[in-house]
C-alpha cells in the first residue's frame, strides 16, 4: 500500500517537472532514446566533420597530382594509393564527400521546399485548384529526369554540383508535393483548423501558423529520407558521367573512374572506400529518418 502511494507521488512529481515541453521537444527526447538513430546521427556527424575539415586528415591537395607516383598501391606516402593521374585516393575520398553531401542536402531541402509550397497550396485550397495542380504533378512525375540532366548540361555546358542541385530540385518536387497535399487535405478537416477559421484567421495565417507547424514532423522525416535518396542519386549520375567534372573530387566520380575490370579486380583500395562512405552515409541518414518517424509518431510508445 505504502509503496503504491509513494509511486503515485513520484508519478505526480515527474509530471509536474515535465511541464510545458512542446510536442516537438517530447519527440526529440524520444529520438535520443533510440540507439540506432543516435548511432546514425553520430556517424553522420563524423562524416560531415571529415568532409568539412579534410585537411586535418591529409596534407594532399585532391586536385594536385603526384606525377612521380601514379597508379601507386597503398604506401606510407599514399595510404590509399593514387589513381592513374597521380591523384591521392585518400585526399579525393576525404574531399569528395563535400560534393555528395552538398548535393544531397541541398537537393533534399530544395525539393521539400518546392514540394511543401506546391502541395500545401494544392491541398489547402482543394477543389478545382487542387485538380489542376495535381494534373501538372502527373505530367512532372512522368518527366524523363536523366534526359533533362543530359540536355541541360549540353546546352549550358556547365557541369557543377549546383547544376545538379538545381536539376534535382526542379524535377523531383512532385513526389513530396503529392504527399504534402495529402497531409494538408487531412489537416484541413481537423477541428483546430476549423477552429482557427471560427476566430477569423486568414487563409495564409491558417496555412502557415496552424497547418505548417503540424506538418513539420512529417516534413522533417521526409527530408531525411530524401537526403538518403540523393546521396545515392548523385553517385549514380556521377557514375554515368553526368555528375560533376572529373577534376572535382566526388565519391561518385571516384567510382566512375574505377569501373574497368582491371581496377575493379586489382585495386579494391581505390573503389572500396568511397563505396563504404556512400553506404554509411545512406544508412546513417536512413536510421535517423526511421528514428525521427518513430519519435514523431503519436502511436509509438515513449
Amino acid at each position: 500500500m505504502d509503496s503504491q502511494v509513494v509511486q503515485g507521488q513520484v508519478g505526480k512529481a515527474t509530471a509536474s517537472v515535465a511541464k510545458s515541453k512542446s510536442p516537438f521537444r517530447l519527440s526529440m527526447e524520444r529520438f535520443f532514446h533510440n540507439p540506432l538513430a543516435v548511432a546514425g546521427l553520430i556517424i553522420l556527424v563524423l562524416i560531415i566533420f571529415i568532409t568539412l575539415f579534410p585537411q586535418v586528415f591529409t596534407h594532399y591537395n585532391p586536385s594536385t597530382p603526384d606525377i612521380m607516383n601514379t597508379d601507386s598501391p597503398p604506401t606510407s606516402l599514399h595510404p590509399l594509393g593514387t589513381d592513374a593521374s597521380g591523384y591521392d585516393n585518400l585526399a579525393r575520398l576525404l574531399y569528395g564527400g563535400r560534393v555528395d553531401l552538398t548535393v544531397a542536402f541541398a537537393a533534399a531541402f530544395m525539393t521539400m521546399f518546392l514540394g511543401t509550397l506546391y502541395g500545401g497550396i494544392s491541398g489547402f485550397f482543394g477543389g478545382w485548384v487542387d485538380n489542376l495542380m495535381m494534373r501538372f504533378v502527373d505530367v512532372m512525375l512522368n518527366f524523363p529526369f536523366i534526359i533533362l540532366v543530359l540536355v541541360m548540361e549540353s546546352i549550358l555546358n556547365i557541369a557543377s554540383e549546383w547544376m545538379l542541385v538545381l536539376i534535382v530540385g526542379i524535377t523531383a518536387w512532385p513526389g513530396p508535393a503529392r504527399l504534402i497535399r495529402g497531409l494538408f487535405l487531412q489537416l484541413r478537416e481537423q477541428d483546430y483548423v476549423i477552429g482557427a477559421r471560427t476566430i477569423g484567421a486568414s487563409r495564409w495565417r491558417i496555412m502557415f501558423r496552424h497547418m505548417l507547424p503540424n506538418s513539420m514532423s512529417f516534413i522533417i522525416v521526409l527530408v531525411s529520407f530524401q537526403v538518403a535518396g540523393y546521396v545515392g542519386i548523385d553517385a549514380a549520375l556521377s557514375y554515368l558521367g553526368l555528375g560533376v567534372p572529373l577534376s572535382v573530387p566526388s565519391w561518385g566520380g571516384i567510382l566512375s573512374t574505377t569501373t574497368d575490370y582491371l581496377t575493379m579486380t586489382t585495386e579494391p583500395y581505390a573503389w572500396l572506400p568511397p563505396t563504404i562512405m556512400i553506404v554509411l552515409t545512406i544508412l546513417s541518414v536512413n536510421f535517423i529518418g526511421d528514428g525521427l518517424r518513430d519519435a514523431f509518431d503519436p502511436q509509438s510508445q515513449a
Partner: protein
Amino acid sequence: MSEPLLKVSNLKTYFISKYRTVKAVDGVDFEVQKGKVLGIVGESGSGKSMTSLSIMGLIPPPYGKIVEGEIRFEGVDLSKLSEKKMNDVRGNRISMIFQEPMSALNPVLKIGEQIDEVLIRHKRLSKSEARRKSIQLLQSVGFPRAEQIVNEYPHQLSGGMRQRAMIAMAMACEPSILIADEPTTALDVTIQAQVLDLMRDLKEHTGTAIVLITHDLGVVADMADDMIVMYGGQVVESGTADDIFNTPLHPYTNALMESIPVIDEERERLTAIPGTVPSAANFPQGCRFAERCAIAQASCHEKMPELRELQPGHLVRCDLA
C-alpha cells in the same frame, strides 16, 4: 418583443454534387434574442451543426452552399458578406466552441498563443497586452494558475480544462453571440455541470447570447430560454423552453421527452423512437417524421405540414397537433 439579435429566415443549406442533392438544412427559421439562450435540439443528422456552420459561413466547400434564405445579424445579411468581411465577424462578434475540446485546440501552439491570436487579430492589441488579457480571460473561466496555463500545450490539460480554454478563447472579444455546438457531449457529467455553469455566468456578466446546440434535453431544460426542435433539416417545433417542456405539441418532441429515463421508475427497457432519421439526400414527400410517428395517418405521408402557430409564440409542424 424587441428586434432580435440574429434572425435566420428560410435558411436552406444544400450539398449539391453531380449525383445528388443533400438537403442538410431545409428552410429553417429562428431568432436569437439579445442575452438569451436558444437551445437547438435534434438527433444526429437533423441539421443542427450545419445550421450553426451556416451562420459562421463555414459550410465545407466545394459542394456545400447556402442556396436560399437570410441570416440577419445586426442589420446585415451574413450569407451575403464577403469572406474578408466575414472574417472580421468570426471570433469577434460571433464565436463558436466545439464538441471535441481534445481536437479543437492546435496541438503545437501554447494555450496562451492561441488566445493571443484572437485578441491581436480583432482587437489590435500588442503581444504583451494580449498576453495580459489572455491571462485575465483564463482566470475568468476559472483557471487558478492562469500565468502557467498560458505557457502550456493542449496535451497537458484535461478535457474539461481544454473546453474552458476554448470558452476563454471564444469569449475573448466579448462576442454578441456564442455558438456552442454540443459543448458538453465529450465531457463527463461533473465537468459538464461546471462548463454549463461557467457559460451561464459568462452570459450574465457579458450579455452574450448563446446558441446551444445539443441532443441532451437535460442541458436545454437547464440553460435555454427559447428552443427549437429540429428534424430532417427542418424546425418541427419552436417556442419558449418552458412551453415546449410543459406542453410538447409535435409527436417527435413528445417521443423525445418520453425517451428521457425517469429515475424513480423501474423499466425493463429505455423508451426509444423506432427507426432512424431519413437520409437528407432522399426525403419523403410528406411529413419527414411520418415513418416513425405513432399517430401518423395516410395524409401525413402525402403532404408536408406547415409550421403553424398553435399558441402565441409556440409553433409546430404537425397537422394533427
